[in-house]
């Protein structure tokens, strides 16, 4: 699903050049649930940005579902993001004046789907995260965990190939974190490929594979015995 070879990325900081990614080789197969771990400055966010087409690598190759991701202009990148990727953020990033349902329906709007189809699909995914009865509520009326579940529903609505979650539990208490991870696991069980960036070991343990980044290189890449979140919920 994801094929990365010898990925390099550096940032110009004034006169200095900061080499953030120093040759990453990394691949993810369909249906995997991968945790990307590392301390701040390890390059995990940069890697996720590149994976999410929010940023571009200096050198190296990146294939997403056998499509080469290179030299995309903004419009093309937006199209690919919409088609291939679903994002879940630490701070939820829901549009505050839209209801839960409208938020979930938004990626479908950018897919130019008909209104009826948007509403039906959005409702279906809200149901999937257990928030069907909260459809007409604004984000301000939802708890943190509920907001993140809406965000997950939104990320899934466009039926992306890969779900990218950047510290999805970073702003949640541990009980709610496990609830969210439970949902992520169940989505993964249905076959969705998911990448989770986290610095929390217990969250990483709930994935099937952990990739450790340090100073711009992968120092460890191991399969783990998945801890099911449902036992804590």
């Amino acid at each position, binding site marked *: 699903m994801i094929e990365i070879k010898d990925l390099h990325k550096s940032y110009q900081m004034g006169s200095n050049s900061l080499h953030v990614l120093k040759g990453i080789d990394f691949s993810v197969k369909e249906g995997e649930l991968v945790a990307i771990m590392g301390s701040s400055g390890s390059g995990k966010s940069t890697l996720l*940005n590149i994976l*999410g087409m*929010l*940023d571009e690598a200096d050198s190296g190759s990146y294939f997403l579902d056998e499509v080469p991701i290179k030299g995309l202009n*903004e*419009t093309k990148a*937006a*199209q690919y*993001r*919409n*088609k291939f990727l679903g*994002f879940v*953020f630490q*701070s939820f*990033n*829901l*549009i*505050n*004046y*839209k209801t839960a349902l*409208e938020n979930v329906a*938004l*990626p479908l*709007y*950018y*897919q*130019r789907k008909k*209104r009826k189809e948007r509403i039906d699909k959005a409702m279906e995914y809200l149901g999937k995260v257990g928030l069907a009865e909260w459809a007409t509520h604004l984000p301000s009326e939802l708890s943190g965990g509920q907001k993140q579940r809406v965000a997950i529903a*939104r990320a899934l609505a*466009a039926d992306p190939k890969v779900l990218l979650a950047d510290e999805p539990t970073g702003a949640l208490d541990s009980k709610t974190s496990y609830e969210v991870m439970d949902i992520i696991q169940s989505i993964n069980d249905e076959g969705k490929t998911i990448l989770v960036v986290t610095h929390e070991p217990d969250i990483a343990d709930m994935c099937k594979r952990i990739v450790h980044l340090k100073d711009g290189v992968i120092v460890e890449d191991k399969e783990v015995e998945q801890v099911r979140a449902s036992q804590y919920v």
Partner: protein
Amino acid sequence: MFDRDRWGEIFEAIGKNKLRTFLSGFTVALGILIFTILLGLGNGLLNSFLSSFVDDAQNIIFIRGGNTSKAYKGFQENRRIQFKNEDFEFIKSNYIGKVEFATPRIYRNGSAKYKKESGSYSIRAVHPDHQYLEKTIMMNGRYLNESDINERTKNIVIGRLVEKDLFKNEKALGKMLNVDGIAYKIIGVFQDSGGDNEERIIYMPYKTVQLLYGNNDHINQINLSYNMAMSTEQAIAFSKKIEEDFKEKFKVAPDDQSAIRVRSFAEDIKETMVILGGIYMIIFVVGIGTLISGVIGIGNIMTFSVKERTKELGIRKALGASPRSIIAMVLQESVLITSVAGYLGLILGILALKLIGNNLEKFFILNPKVDTGIIMTATMVLIFFGLLAGYIPARRAAKIKPIIALRDE
């Protein structure tokens, strides 16, 4: 542009961000409102200046005779200067090319009678040219003509209010009117923008009056209009020339102020034009100033609005919105708001001017109105600059990397 879904999205954004909508709309509406009222009041000021000229032609010169105040060339002072037909002919034949229209005037009062109704009216005995000098508008029939003068017909033209007073609901045209015991035929009814008094006048052929009232060739006054091609300076010089010629003709001392009085509007017009120029200038400067401050206001609001939306726009980008769709959304929204608000301001402004109406006449503001074309242009300018002001931050927002927009807590 006509994508129903996109408009839906925009209406939703407008409806749910009332403060933002109100702020940007308010700026535009206020700008246009102030601009409209200002322009209207300025025009009112202009109208009140111009209204002093609407009654008569602006290029008119009056020549009147009085009594001499000085002895001169063997004549004693306090001699009466009486104009005659030959003086009128002198004007017509002596200043060819400079005089446009000319008429003698003889003033009388007469009591007019029709059936049981009667009243006293001003009579003006005039030449057909008088119609153009006085800007008399014929409602029915015709004005006096040359053959009325030469044949000394008893044809008269009466004012609208004379008809109304004496004939009530009857049509006066073609009827006979008894004035001071003599029956005249009414050949025309006129109106005049100079007010009620100007419409209670009876016009007669001057030679007819001279024949019937005293059988002489006396004239009270000569009115003429000079060629419009003359500049104001030339016109002033021309009226001086007439005064000199007449003083010589009647053997009046050159510095005698009361014997021959030549009065033209040329100097008044010159002064008025300077004032009008000043007023135009002020309106222009203040109007432009209002527009500029409106544009700046919109620019500020747009920048603020886009900044406030940076995060939302970042989310939309992450979800697959193209930069173009982001810019289009922001701009369409702002155009919608500015157009509606601009139109609202325009309507309010025109309404306010209607309410003001002629209530401010004592402040020299008469009939304040605006040219819709100018206001539309002003609104367009505001919308255009609102667009421009919105485009710059919108483009920046569209370019910003979503990950940065989203991180910006």
